């Protein structure tokens, strides 16, 4: 089982979290004219890296906050966690 350190609550087991996908994906700006390809990239296209991957998780059975987690997708090792509004350095 994964153990994820929620930046708000501390170390918790994976059961309390739900997964939200790639954290590097940014929604196109509201009201800005963008191409179909940009929408495609935002909605569907993913790099799905092997190795270190920044991803969103929600502490759904805890504080209910969204957080960012840096995890290795081939070893499941977790390196770092951030609050949702903190930038990935």
């Amino acid at each position, binding site marked *: *089982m*994964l153990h994820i350190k929620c930046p708000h609550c501390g170390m918790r087991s*994976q*059961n309390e979290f*739900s*997964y939200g*996908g*790639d954290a590097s994906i940014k929604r196109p700006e509201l009201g800005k004219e963008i191409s*179909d*390809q940009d929408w*495609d*990239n935002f*909605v*569907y*296209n*993913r*790099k*799905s*890296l*092997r190795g270190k*991957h920044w*991803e969103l998780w929600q502490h759904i059975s805890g504080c209910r906050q969204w957080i960012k987690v840096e*995890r290795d*997708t*081939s*070893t*499941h090792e977790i390196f770092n966690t951030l609050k949702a509004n903190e930038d990935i350095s």
Partner: protein
Amino acid sequence: MQKYSIFNLVKNAFSNHENWDLAWKDPTPKKEYDVVIIGGGGHGLATAYYLAKEHNITNVAIIEKGWIGGGNVGRNTTIIRSNYMHDDNALFSEFGMDLWRKMSQDLNYNVMFSPRGIINLAHSDAQMNVYARRGNSMRLNGIDAVLLNREEVKEIIPMADFTENVRFPIFGGLMQPSAGTARHDAVAWGYARQADSMGVDIIQNCEVIGFDVSGGKIKGVRTSRGDIKAKKIGLCVAGSTNILAEKLNMTLPIETHLLQACVSEPVKPVLDRVVTFGAGHFYISQSDKGEMVMGGDLDGYNSYAQRGNLPTLQHVLTEGIAMMPFLSKLKMLRTWGGIMDMSMDGSPIIDKTHIEGLYLNCGWCYGGFKATPASGWTFAHTIAQDRVHELNAGYSLNRFNTGHLLDEKGLGTKTWIS
């Protein structure tokens, strides 16, 4: 190639079965091929076989980083079915059912195809309505479908939970009698043996390092066993699709996820159908050895681990026990995981790409095994003719861009939607 037959079996018995030919050779890669297929799984082997058989293209290499049949074709729960509602999925899968029925004869290899029928259980009136609609759609496409009520289901699978006051009572189910199972390793080996006999080079322990692309055309592939030139290259790498796409500077509507399966200790024959739970994601059948073969949901987060986590297994087996309480008495024999190429609409992609001579076969989600022959057949057609066949026209790569999604279940990578 030595034919497998009762006569050859008897003949070889006199020499203690020591003189059988090798099923396939172990060639060193040539400098150049007409077609290189990357990925020696079921789909890649089937593609090479149909390239040779249907299109007379035999200067073909399959390159595989591990050993053939070591990936998802050896890790699935062996279910074969065509119980789809949408035309694109239904016609493609039913075409595959025909190939399954003929496969053992066609390949001269017993793939132990067992058309024992699949039952999708329904647990509410609404679900019965949905199944009636799906069953009717299937029948319109020439696929057998039978809507069963509670009593009829009980007659077929009395070991399911038909007691009162259960959380998800069984209202009935949708059965496809012609669906079934097959021995998955035999499918890989059967295709490999026939492809090899027609001149295809099966090159194992050969990992792709990069691609040679110039002027928008594919020129060849760089591998751990040297550079190989090719006019056409087909990608059939399932859970490694994103890794190779990155080497091609492509970003695909695919995420790589982990799916687990497990078998119980072997028990006496108890279940002679494939059954799926309708209030969650759980499927079960009994193997010829007597093991209960079970599977369910994705682990739910991107993974290349080929190794699962226990919370998902617990969740899946909880559903199993809700459906068939006797399962709680069984001991688990083995669990394993495979990495899935999950497409965003839950349907596969078999298409050309923006690079001339590069073809893509991926996005198989939960349903790769049963698609093996149809996928190989249509992918071989797409590569040989440089155009998609009408059977895989719906499996285009640009459907995500144009909005023509094939959202049979509307699931894709987002398991929490179910």
